[in-house]
């Protein structure tokens, strides 16, 4: 048997342990009375699944916290059967999990778990995102009114805006504080997720602020960013307050003028 065929056979046995049969395993491997060949292969088969589920548990601890251990294992086993790891970094093994949860809804599960998994995934991405030194709000003060209108914000890479169907922040908080989880609440919302220093944060944004941030992320001029508050009672004050908080949270890497 060629090396390629041997590896294909070994891979099949380990990833589909139900196919391990004494005769088939003995064709490839040596065994001993204390530890027959099929039992030796089963060591690898068990490690394959446990190792990957363990990696998923580490990467999605909040999601795992919603389930009993065996329920989480069973769900992740289904996921891994459909999405085996395709990346040399085991930290990427869960990169299709959000899509899997959305595409395979189960009435026995909470409907907001895909949103919870997405929040965990984004927070992990941001934890490892490129570093950038933020600037403070004095950069804005130095601009005249005309330059202010045309200026554009360059935001730090470790900042994302995500839209969710369910209220995921209260669920996150309850899991974080080990309190009973609230019932799922379907209500569209936008979360900003960012890193400050080495810590990752998320916060629900009001509709106007989410729109303003969306525009800033598209490198719209500040005039258009602030126009997101045009329906507000005090548009200028509200826009200034939001911009100030963005600087304070370290979201702004540069202020670019023409």
């Amino acid at each position, binding site marked *: 048997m060629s090396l390629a065929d041997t590896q294909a056979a070994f891979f099949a046995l380990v*990833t589909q342990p139900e196919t391990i049969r004494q005769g088939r395993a003995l064709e490839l*491997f040596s065994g001993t009375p204390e530890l027959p060949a099929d039992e030796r292969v089963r060591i690898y088969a068990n490690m394959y699944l446990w190792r990957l589920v363990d990696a998923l548990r580490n990467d999605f601890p909040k999601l795992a916290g919603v389930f009993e251990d065996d329920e989480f294992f069973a769900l992740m086993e289904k996921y891994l059967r459909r999405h085996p790891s395709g990346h040399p970094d085991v930290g990427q093994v869960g990169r299709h999990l959000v899509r899997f949860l959305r595409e395979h809804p189960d009435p026995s599960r909470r409907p907001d778990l895909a949103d919870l998994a997405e929040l965990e995934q984004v927070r992990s991405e941001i934890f*490892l995102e490129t570093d950038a030194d933020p600037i403070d709000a004095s950069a804005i003060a130095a601009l005249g009114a005309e330059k202010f209108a045309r200026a554009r914000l360059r935001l730090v890479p470790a900042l994302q805006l995500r839209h969710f169907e369910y209220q995921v922040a209260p669920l996150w908080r309850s899991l974080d504080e080990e309190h009973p989880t609230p019932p799922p609440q379907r209500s569209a919302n936008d979360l900003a997720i960012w890193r400050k220093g080495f810590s990752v944060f998320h916060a629900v944004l009001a509709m106007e602020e989410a729109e303003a941030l969306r525009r800033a992320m598209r490198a719209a001029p500040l005039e258009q960013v602030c126009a997101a508050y045009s329906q507000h009672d005090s548009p200028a004050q509200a826009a200034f307050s939001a911009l100030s908080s963005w600087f304070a949270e370290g979201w702004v890497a540069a202020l670019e003028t023409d």
Partner: protein
Amino acid sequence: MPACRFGDVGRSMSFTRKYLGHGVGLRQPHFSRWLSEKPAVDWVEIISENFFSRGGRPLAVLEKVRAETPVVMHGVSLSIGSTDPLNAGYLAELKQLAARIQPEWISDHLCWGSHASKYAHDLWPLPYTEEALAHVVQRVHAVQEALQRQILLENVSSYVAFQQSTMSEWEFLGEVARRADCGILLDINNIYVSARNHGFDAQEYLDQVPVARVGQFHLAGHSDKGTHLLDTHDAPVPDPVWLLFQSAVKRFGPVSTLIEWDDHIPELEELLCESGKAAALQHQVLEPRSIPEFA
């Protein structure tokens, strides 16, 4: 840091052992300690793939450590024995990280762990055949060419042996190193675990590994499952492995030695204590004057 030539290293074709002393793994639970102080350790080893990120805390910790302490990169996903094509993206990331932190050397495992572009994230043994040998040698050449440096390959723990093997594990390991002109990371615990699981003599293994090719030792703990030993890296180095280590020091001389502990990771002090024990045992075995002095 001076290169250490010992035993028959001086007669080797082109592999030069560099002696760093005694190290520990740089692991996430100890990051805050590494950021706030400089633990008393000669060098650290990282799991390369854990630092492939673009930024954030892991890289910040690594760069701080690197500024003060020699770092070695140890990979787990090269899959050098796989019949899949080498992963060019993976090699590019490895090379990029190496350019950033300038490791003392780069190592991975003499094994395979991927098939049809799917990764098991495990270290699977190879059949010890001429075909596998030629395949691995050709790929080591390609990796060394891509990285523009020699690599070290580590012997893995195993639970299966292939019927088709035509040579022993130590013969295969030595031949890979010789033909591919690479180094060997000799994991003493893995030799012990595999010897127990397959019924070979661990001392014979040590005696047959070419001294000139060994650039690093690993020491770790394992679990006794009754029918077999499992390489778990979750416990102190057990006595039989310490005994084998002493025997290895006798044969190979001073080799950079690292304590691996990857699960149920203890306080840094316990790791450092294990590393100190390795240093003390090495001193006991060797004449003190044979251990290089460092500036």
